[in-house]
């Protein structure tokens, strides 16, 4: 299935794609530059998306706003989301889990690639 990356940093999106490729994950990657675009891409491709990698701080609609848009829509609520953010405080983690109790992971930048890949492999939905 496809992986959706929602992050305003092109550099971080490319780094994630490179990390996926190096780990042998050949899933097609969809990209969005903010939460608004993420929701648009998700609504068009949700049947094919098996995992979402989500940043927090983004223009227009941030990662929390994106999840708020996702969690109450049954068609997409079960797609695993891993939040990848530079904000690693306990309060931020708690807030993310409160907004999305099914959150598959909360990874703090700079992250260890093998740990992220383990998490991705653990949660990536198969077709």
């Amino acid at each position, binding site marked *: 299935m496809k992986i959706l990356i929602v992050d305003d940093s092109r550099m971080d999106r490319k780094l994630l794609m490179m990390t996926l490729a190096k780990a042998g994950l050949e899933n097609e990657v969809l990209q969005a530059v903010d939460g608004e675009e993420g929701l648009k891409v998700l609504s068009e491709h949700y049947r094919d998306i098996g995992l979402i990698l989500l940043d927090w*701080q983004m223009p227009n609609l941030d990662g929390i706003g994106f999840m708020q848009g996702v969690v109450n829509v049954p068609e997409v609520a079960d797609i695993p989301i891993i939040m990848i953010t530079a904000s690693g*405080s306990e309060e931020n983690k708690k807030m993310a889990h409160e907004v999305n109790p099914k959150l598959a992971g909360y990874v703090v930048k700079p992250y260890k690639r093998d740990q992220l890949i383990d998490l991705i492999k653990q949660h990536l939905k198969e077709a």
Partner: protein
Amino acid sequence: MDTPQPNVSDPFYVQGILLAEVIKRILNRRADIQLAKIETELALRPITEFMERMRVSSIEKFDSTTYISTINFYKSEKDQDGQRALGAIVVYIEGKYIAELLKRMDYPIDDPRDEETLLDGCGTICNLMAGNFKSGLTQLGYAELVMSHFSSFRNEVLEGVPYDIDQQNKYEVTTRIDGVKRMVADLTMGEIPKASST
């Protein structure tokens, strides 16, 4: 104008030290630069204000092309919506070094001369520093702040950067790698509530 002197008992000084440590740790961990090769220097500088915004220019930082990224902090989402900034981090990276730094940090660079790539890269580094700084503040007992997304510029921020206009000074963290000045970060911050008081 007299140069303001750091006050080591001032919480703002501790925040400046925290930012310097965050910068060192990120360069060490992500760019694999030995800590012994990274020097940071903290200096208190007056803020130049114009139309209630902090003037931001690379002229006093580097004498060549400089990439600048800014991130604001707010006490709450309501303050963010009302654009009432509590603080700001402004990161300046020397133009002739930024592509090398991004490569050392393992970011994929297709074209090291591509302006958009370098602006995005500067913002990505600024985000990494600001996010880790914000987490460090909570470990010091401060309330969680709301952080903006990054904005990036070349040489100056014409419109200035929002800040708490009651503040007169900023901390300037100059970073030298292998003895060469490569990056400067400015920090301004109003009074952050303690975690227990929120």
